[in-house]
């Protein structure tokens, strides 16, 4: 398909300056007229990212707690999640199609797989970095294993855990643009596919809006986790001051 065909396929409204779109420039008027077409893909994108990170966190957290008690679990888990992490992303979405079919589910399975290594690593690192003397003092004072985990180890591992969530979330927001390969929707649909009716990858204004929304979403999520991190670890700032 040639550039001219693509541009011809774009619905041009009355108010829109035909010149700008024809020249494939950055067209604020076109964006203002067509921004409605991005809201529902954006919501899908949020849903995909949040759901995947949440499921990924639940799995990684469970595995990390198991690995915390049974050390031998660490090696195999890193090996498996590491292998998952190295599968090329487009390939992952396509490979899953015959198994899980087209749709959200497939996209989420793939996205979850990518979060596991990051989250597992960060949670186990966080737990391992808890000062040993704090744990042995806690045990000596009569805290049970569960109390030590909840009251001492997890709060002290918070910085690393939240750092892991930040990386996982931004990565997932980026990868979720590929979800449309598996029929998962999201901003990737607008970005890459002409079927979305926004001109696809060849139309600059579309790329700016779809790409920009993705970046904004990632940054916004990052900011939220950063805020949680600061609120959850007041002692770190107190020490620095």
């Amino acid at each position: 398909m040639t550039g001219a065909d693509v541009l011809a396929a774009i619905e041009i409204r009355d108010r829109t300056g035909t010149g700008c779109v024809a020249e494939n420039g950055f067209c604020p008027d076109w964006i203002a007229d067509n921004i409605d077409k991005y809201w529902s893909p954006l919501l899908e994108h949020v849903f995909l990212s949040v759901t995947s990170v949440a499921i990924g966190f639940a799995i990684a957290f469970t595995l990390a707690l198991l690995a915390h008690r049974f050390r031998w679990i660490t090696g195999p888990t890193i090996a498996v999640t590491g292998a998952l992490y190295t599968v090329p992303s487009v390939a992952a979405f396509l490979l899953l199609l015959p198994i899980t079919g087209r749709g959200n589910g497939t996209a989420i399975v793939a996205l979850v797989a990518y979060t596991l290594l990051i989250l597992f690593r960060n949670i186990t690192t966080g737990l391992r970095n808890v000062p040993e003397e704090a744990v042995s003092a806690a045990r000596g004072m009569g805290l049970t294993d569960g109390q030590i985990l909840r009251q001492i180890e997890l709060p002290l591992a918070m910085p690393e855990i939240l750092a892991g969530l930040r990386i996982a979330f931004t990565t997932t927001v980026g990868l979720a643009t590929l979800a449309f390969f598996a029929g998962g929707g999201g901003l990737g649909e607008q970005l890459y596919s002409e079927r979305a009716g926004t001109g696809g990858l060849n139309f600059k204004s579309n790329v700016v809006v779809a790409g920009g929304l993705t970046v904004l979403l990632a940054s916004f999520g990052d900011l939220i986790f950063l805020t949680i991190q600061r609120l959850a670890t007041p002692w770190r700032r107190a020490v620095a001051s």
Partner: protein
Amino acid sequence: MPEARTPHPAVDLDFRAVTKQYPGADQPAVEELTLHVPAGEICVLVGPSGCGKTTAMRMVNRLIEPTSGDILLGGSSVKDRKPAELRREIGYAIQQIGLFPHKTIAENVATVPQLLGWPKDRVRARVDELLELVSLPPAEVRDRYPGQLSGGQRQRVGVARALAADPPVLLMDEPFGAIDPINRERLQNEFLRLQAELRKTIVFVTHDIDEAIKMGDRVAVMKRGGKLAQYASPAELLMSPADEFVEQFVGADRALKRLALQRVRDLDLWRVALVREGDPMAEVRAKIADSDIENLALLVDDQNRPLGWLGERELAAERVSGVGCSPPEPTVDTNDVLRDALGRLLSEESLYGPVIDGRGAVVGVLSMDAIAHALQTPAEDVPSSADLLAG
């Protein structure tokens, strides 16, 4: 210092032939350890690294399970208790302190009371009481984080936390080990003063024989292989080491170490002629004849505070005058330990010095002879440091 309430009376602690053998180790970590620690006393476990002293201590609150033998608290076996519940009744302080960096000082101190489900008001009151007890201003430190305190302050918080639920027994693993010598000495003294009030049963682990002698009512010297070499009072340990190992471990200066266990007030001081300005010489001569020091009189003011020594030349005058007298230094306090008093005499190159009481009045003269005599005191007459501070 606020009054410390002790609703939990201290209990006896007994090691009964306790052995810990780790699988694969060629000798036991602790072998057939039998010790009786009377209620309210400090038992120091001391020895070189690898002698099993920490292992022995950690078996009391079941952080380590003995291979054989038993440990009794107040007559009942620790084996019959759930480890977590047992530990909440046993104070625990370690060298690395192990404060929780993410909890405030108040939350740290409140750890065990909270586990025991104390009501909030009681926990709050107890935290403030304990912080005061360890000389930390509650309003200032309560809401701080451990990272904001100095090492010495953190160590105090560690002790407060160990005492929080008023446990009858306290385990302390080199609690002052990571602190600089000056602050360590201060913390040791403070702790002994605290213990004089609290009267807990304490197992105190250290590798430092000086600390052992200072802190212990009784000292258990252990050697490699977890064997008990000697269990005795500090004075007895210094006077009559049981074997060559103990003798070497307490050091060649063990006689000097004993001087840290006695105070100036425990000695027979020399009597000295106390004279005031304007006294007639005949009176002075009579006083000198009645004193233990020949040819010397001590000039004092109307409060009996020392002003200077009067020698042959000054005594030749008709009446006492302060002109030309030599300074009274070194003076020692009745409450000084003999080691410090001896140090004073040596640094001023003097054979004797006036002894003053709390108000600065002269009560006698300490001489090198008296100190030498003190070294011959039988062990049972030498008190422990804890007694000294209690008095």
